[in-house]
């Protein structure tokens, strides 16, 4: 992969962050993710991996430094702009899937379109949702509810929801943490394949050493905090 030819999609520069309680401090001198890269973030519990995702998504803002996505400084934007940018350009995949139990699969996939004006729900989006669901292998389960699906199927739904609006950046927080070993690899391959088709970038937090070989690059958060980046 010719990394030098690809532009940066995410850049964190001179980040200093701490929670209000003051018992956690995170310093990130520099972190860069290139467009189309599949990057894993590993590190001990409590080292700030999820905080990194929240900073990258604009959910949290640093006390110092800048978070830049596709050339736009996210933390310089106001709350509403950050939210609109996030829901339009970033896809989230959660460990516990984050599906809404009272919505069927189709409505779960379309859910982001129903909670913001930044995305417009029209017939084209609905068609795309159906196609994406077919592609991911849950096309025949659109009228079911999450409780009726297996863990693997639920994570497929979550991936479908995260990718429907064609985000530039996918943030995955232990996306395979609740899956059995066979399903883990399968879902990850499916995710990578779909992300590649959509020319998106993925930044995934994981504890699972077995999956690291599937990523382009691995950032060890401990090493990172000590000043360097550990690459595959």
């Amino acid at each position, binding site marked *: 992969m010719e990394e030098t030819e690809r532009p940066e999609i995410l850049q964190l520069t001179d980040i200093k962050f701490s929670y209000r309680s003051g018992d956690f401090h995170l310093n990130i001198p520099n972190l860069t993710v290139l467009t189309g890269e599949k990057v894993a973030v590993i590190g001990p519990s409590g080292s700030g991996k999820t905080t990194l995702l929240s900073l990258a998504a604009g959910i949290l803002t640093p006390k110092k430094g800048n978070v830049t996505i596709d050339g736009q400084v996210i933390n310089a934007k106001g*709350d509403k702009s950050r939210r609109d940018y996030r829901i339009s350009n970033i896809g989230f995949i959660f460990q516990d899937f984050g599906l809404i139990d009272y919505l069927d699969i189709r409505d779960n996939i379309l859910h982001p379109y129903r*909670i913001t004006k930044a995305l417009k729900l029209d017939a084209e989006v609905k068609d795309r949702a159906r196609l994406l669901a077919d592609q991911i292998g849950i096309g025949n389960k659109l009228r079911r509810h999450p409780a009726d699906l297996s863990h693997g199927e639920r994570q497929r739904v979550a991936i479908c929801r995260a990718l429907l609006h064609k985000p530039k950046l996918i943030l995955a927080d232990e996306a395979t943490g609740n899956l059995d070993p066979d399903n883990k690899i399968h879902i990850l391959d499916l995710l990578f394949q779909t992300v590649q088709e959509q020319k998106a970038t993925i930044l995934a937090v994981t504890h699972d050493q077995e999956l690291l070989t599937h990523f382009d690059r691995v950032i060890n958060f401990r090493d990172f905090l000590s000043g360097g980046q550990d690459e595959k």
Partner: protein
Amino acid sequence: MKNSLYLAYRYLSFNKIRSLVLISCITIIAVLPLALETLLNESERQLALRAEESPLLIGAKGSALDLVMNSLYFSDEIPETITMAAAEQVMDSDLAMPIPLYIRFQARNFPIVGTSLDYFDFRELELAQGTMFTSLGQCVIGSDVAEKLGLKEGDYIVSSPENLFDIAGVYPLKMKISGVLVASSSADDRAVFVDVMTAWVIHGLGHGHKDVTQTTDGSVILKKDKGNVTANAKLMQYAEITEENIDSFHLHGDPATFPLTAVLAIPYDKKSSTILQGRYLNKDTIYQIVRPKEVVDTLMATIFKIRNVLDAVIVLVGSATLLALVLVFSLSLRLREGEIDVIFKIGCSRATTARLLGAEIFIIILVSGVICLGLISVIVQFDQELVRSLFI
């Protein structure tokens, strides 16, 4: 807003039982005071109107309320009886027009009102079909009786025995319906009117049977003297008064001693009214004279006090229920923290989250409101019947 309502609808329809409980609670809180208010207002209106139209009532000493409720609204509580002499006494006084009332029996659960034709003029009751009763054994029925029993002029209705197990009791009388009254939205709609003499026949004070002096059936005769014939129980009394047997009907005793439950007295003027009331103030008299409006006003004052207590109870219960609903919503919010966190991370604003929850509350209140309106409409539609069956 469309999307918020859609998601709210999905949430509520997924949690059906919870939603139904919430809707039921809010509906009950809203309907209960409104329904009570509607019914009490209607009962107040019905009671007051009828009482205002009835100047004076003479009956046996005892409960004035029972006397008024029986005479004006034909309630089941039967007051002590007086005699026809009371009506004659009023007539002789030249102070008021007496209308006898004997309200004791029933026909198919509707009260039989024994009275005179003056009653219909006084109440301004008009016929929808047929004529007023013109002879013994005929009756005029109210509009509700006709509608509910599917009866019309020329049909028959049979009086109900007071006690099925009383072998010596009164025989049921088959009465011919001579006319049906126009609906008046009063107790008159639910009554069977007969001449007071017919009511006495039902009582057993008058009857008709074969002429025992002419009969050739020896098994009927118990003893036969010169001018005196004694019949045994085989002598069949007529259960229907027809043109053929009407002449055989007769009363035993002096009609002045026959029972009435009340006399409705219509004074000719205010002065006559005052004088007439004065005549019944004597401690020795066996009668009481009451102004129905005063009795009903006293009753309404009591109802008003009860209503205030009920209102206070409803407010307390309503407040407690509302607090419980707030608790349910806040617990529901805690249960949905995960969901709220997810949609916030995806990019949903706090305002949108609040709008989603607001939409759920809106739908619950809207559905409760629609059910409430429907129930109140039904209650308003049938308030007269409900008041009569529940209160009067």
